[in-house]
């Protein structure tokens, strides 16, 4: 195999940093001058940016593990497409699908949610929110999801290269300054409108639009919800955190998991469920999952039953309410 030193591909992640700074300054300027929609709050923005710095620092360890594992998997590759324009495009598409699958898991498995929750913990939605990234990704084991790409024969550096482009694109969808784009773009690509839905805690918008670049994955797998004018996105968590302290922003959900798991009187299954079931699961029903919140919303607004993002609570002939149960 070519050694990493033999292959020259731009470090797209690093090269994007000046873009991020310029983007934030432009967005902030437009918002301040009243030329565009959006809001900035100093402590929120600085928390987001410092979480990004921490992510870069902790990402070094993650990158070492990731590259080592990808090199190992690549040595057993099935195909050898090399590094060409078409292998780059194919790798990009497959990596984007990988990101979709991983992102869905980040929202539906509490152990992974603990790593991802801080990205959603801002009650604002601007370019700084894009940089509010986790410090604990190494504990999710997500590097394993890269292995199939390497086994298929995509060079590790190519995977990282397209990944950098993917992440750079995602930065620019974290904004309120842009409304809906041209319909063909809205149909194929993740856009600020689609991503506003993803970051909001409105019941209909929960657990929707997991796309990184291509929104078509959400359309194919039924997780797409359109932004609606009458349901303005409200950003943040279902229960927003009450601190700007970086340590608690980064680790609060991990601490909560361990506190729940350590509760006395639980069965082994219940302890495992507190780690791996959907966020909001509780052994005594004292908390609410996204599904519970959606069902609660439909009970209060029955005309919304079955609308995108909301369950279809249909009355049966015997007067009882039917329910489409989510898979556990």
């Amino acid at each position, binding site marked *: 195999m070519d050694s990493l030193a033999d292959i020259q591909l731009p470090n797209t992640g690093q090269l994007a*940093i000046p873009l991020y*700074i310029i983007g934030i300054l432009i967005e902030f300027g437009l918002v*301040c001058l009243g030329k565009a929609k959006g809001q900035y709050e100093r*402590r929120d923005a600085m928390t987001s940016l410092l979480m990004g*710095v921490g992510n870069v620092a902790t990402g070094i360890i993650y990158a070492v593990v990731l590259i080592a594992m990808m090199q190992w998997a690549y040595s057993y590759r099935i195909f050898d497409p090399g590094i060409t324009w078409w292998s780059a495009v194919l790798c990009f598409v497959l990596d984007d699908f990988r990101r979709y699958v991983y992102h869905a898991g980040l929202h539906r498995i509490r152990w992974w949610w603990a790593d991802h929750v801080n990205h959603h913990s801002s*009650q604002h939605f601007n370019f700084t929110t894009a940089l509010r990234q986790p410090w604990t990704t190494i504990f999710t084991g997500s590097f394993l999801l890269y292995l199939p790409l390497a086994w298929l024969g995509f060079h590790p550096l190519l995977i990282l290269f397209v990944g950098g482009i993917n992440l750079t694109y995602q930065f620019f969808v974290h904004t309120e300054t842009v409304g809906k784009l041209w319909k063909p773009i809205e149909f194929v690509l993740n856009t600020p409108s689609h991503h506003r839905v993803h970051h909001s805690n409105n019941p209909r918008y929960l657990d929707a639009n997991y796309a990184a670049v291509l929104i078509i994955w959400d359309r194919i797998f039924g997780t797409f919800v359109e932004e609606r004018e009458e349901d303005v996105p409200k950003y943040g968590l279902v229960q*927003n955190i*009450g601190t700007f302290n970086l340590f608690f922003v980064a680790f609060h959900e991990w601490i909560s998991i361990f506190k729940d798991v350590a509760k006395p009187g639980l069965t082994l299954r219940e302890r495992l469920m507190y780690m791996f079931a959907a966020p909001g699961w509780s052994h005594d029903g004292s908390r609410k999952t996204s599904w519970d919140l959606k069902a609660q919303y439909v009970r209060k607004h029955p005309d919304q039953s079955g609308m995108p993002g909301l369950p279809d609570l249909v009355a049966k002939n015997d007067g009882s309410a039917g329910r489409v149960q989510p898979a556990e």
Partner: protein
Amino acid sequence: MNPILLVVLIVGGLILIDLLLRFARTPPSGQLESETQAVDQLCREYPELDASDVSRVVLTADRRAAFVAMTSGPAGFVSGMGDRFVVRQLRPADIREAVPEAESALRVRFNEVALRPMRFEFSDSAERDLVLVLLGAARGPIQTT
């Protein structure tokens, strides 16, 4: 990219953005204009609640937090967080400690990791003691307005 240049860019960017945010026009802080706003925030976060079930609202002296007594169910809590609010329903089990301080202050520690300890100053000791009752940290009648 040269690592030193990268560090300079990141640190320089952070300082520049922080300075701009400090000196630019920013949205108002998370201060409650009225008891009604506190109730609105609570009912917005907990749509199953009804504003007509509110029996009493106690605002802190700086109007950055409010405790909402309901005719039934746990008390509501609304607290300024930057220019936004954090809202909770608080049961006695959610309170690790509620300690009166000075004449009319209350220091509260929550069992929830994402809610850090807070100190609240009320307009008088009667309001502070009422909140203690709401939080389940003391017994006593809740006087409605």
